[in-house]
């Protein structure tokens, strides 16, 4: 386990990308998840690219039941919300469909619990559009005209155990998000 090994693993993850790692018929996880220490080192490496840290965490969530330790939750929250805001995953499906908690990355972020709240609150003003991929998923998901702040609000509500109702109107969603921001102080 060396720094160079974890950096090499990071480059490998970036080469495959989210699609190549998690969305193909092949399953590269068994091989990539073999050295969990390398992946863990990569997640904790503040100098490594955000995408690589995010992908390493996504692999660990899938191959290591004990991941993440509580101590890592605040840093993971920064990584995940950063990945959401920077569009590290081209399609928003990974974060969940509108009104659902069915995307793995979204589920993992919610799993971080209260440690992720402040990061998500910080994304409630981010109006960057997101796009869903697929066939019917894309047709339905994109009809909502979702933005980063809609996903952030949805995941925040999931962490707080609130209902995941979603409005079709971005204007009405903005109103609800303003209320959410007030509640968050």
């Amino acid at each position, binding site marked *: 386990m060396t720094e160079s090994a974890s950096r090499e693993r990071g480059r490998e993850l970036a080469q495959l990308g989210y*699609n*190549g790692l998690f*969305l*193909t*018929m*092949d399953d590269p996880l068994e091989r990539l998840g073999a050295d969990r220490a390398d992946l863990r080192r990569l997640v904790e490496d503040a100098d490594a*690219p955000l*995408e690589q840290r995010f992908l390493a965490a996504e692999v660990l969530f899938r191959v290591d039941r004990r991941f993440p330790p509580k101590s890592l939750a605040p840093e993971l929250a920064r990584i995940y919300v950063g990945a959401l*805001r*920077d*569009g*590290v995953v*081209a*399609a*928003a*499906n990974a974060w969940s*469909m*509108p*009104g*659902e908690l*069915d995307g793995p990355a979204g589920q993992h972020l919610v799993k971080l619990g209260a440690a992720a709240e402040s990061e998500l609150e910080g994304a409630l003003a981010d*109006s*960057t*559009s*997101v*796009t*869903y*991929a*697929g*066939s*019917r*998923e*894309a*047709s*339905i998901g*994109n*009809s909502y*005209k979702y933005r980063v702040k809609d996903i952030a609000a949805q995941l925040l509500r999931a962490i707080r155990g609130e209902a995941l*109702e*979603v409005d*079709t109107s*971005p204007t009405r969603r903005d109103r609800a998000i303003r209320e959410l921001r007030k509640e968050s102080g």
Partner: protein
Amino acid sequence: MGELEARAKRDKVGAALSRQSGPAPNLVSSLQRYAGNRAVQELLANRKPAVPDAPSPTSTVDLRSRMRSGMLVQRIATWGGDFDTRTYKAVQDGAGTDVGVDIQLEFKPGKMVESSHIGMVQMVNSKDLGVPLPLNATVKGRSIGKGADTGAHIDQLQDFRNPIYYTQKGKKGDSLSSTKSIGDIAGGGRPGWRHKDAKTGKTSTRSARLNDTPQLPGRGANASQVFESTAVALEGKQRGTYYGSVEWGWRTDAAGTFSIIPLAKKQDDAPSDSFREATGLWNASKTSAGGDVVKLGTAEGRFVTADHVKLFGGPTTNASRRELDKNTRVQTTDAKGGRSKVTVIDGAGASEVGWVLTANLAAAKVP
């Protein structure tokens, strides 16, 4: 997706959804990686997102204006009727790159059809960089695992129960025809029918529709989304009968050049072998929440192997409705005790439904 049910109620059938015109910078993943989100936002200011205008089923669009706009208008005749596109055009991401298509596919039942509820269902195979992309673990589990159509699957959301394209999430105990449509909107559609009223003798007809905007944001070279869409009788005497299938979609070549796949006939009556395989995988699968799916019947095209083959009224009755000629085309929709339930596709008994001895059927015409 409980919201969809509520949305279906709120939205008038056929109402167009308005789309925002802001940027969709997450699609330009490489720029994001190297220059960050804000840079992409600035670059894409005033560009349209990868979301086309929603279906506008009530509007009448002149053929010439559709041609001028690059929209493909095609009509494909099958045994059961006509497949037609009311919209068929490319959609772009925020940077103006073609990443998918927008289609409103319609099936207009023809004179051979007798069904009070016709549904539309489709198989899709999405690929990027030449590799199938099933998009989530549930869909991966119900995708064809090997062969030329590796990755192909029945197109439905991971937590929806009903394979009929336009349906709501559904609930336990639903049948193929009982789950309501989300509406004739993006990602939706409507059932059709061609049905003779028993009392008045009048025939009522309505087209079935499917509205889809498939896309792969951030797609590269050798990407594609290829569909086989079909119409199937869910109720009425022809229940389980397929009315032909069409192929459509988009692809990029090795250089990343995008092209729309022209709407074309895939099968004249029963869908393809791959569609049947995907249906079997769907039927054996669960939703992402572990719920039972509504099973979809399969059908196969067959030929009668001899003259004077009896078309029975049931799987056990010996009363013959008529005799079928050698090489009459039939579609099998069920089998019991050595007999196959068939819908007659051509010849004197075309459109009739009955049972024949399975031994009198073959996959190819006989000399």
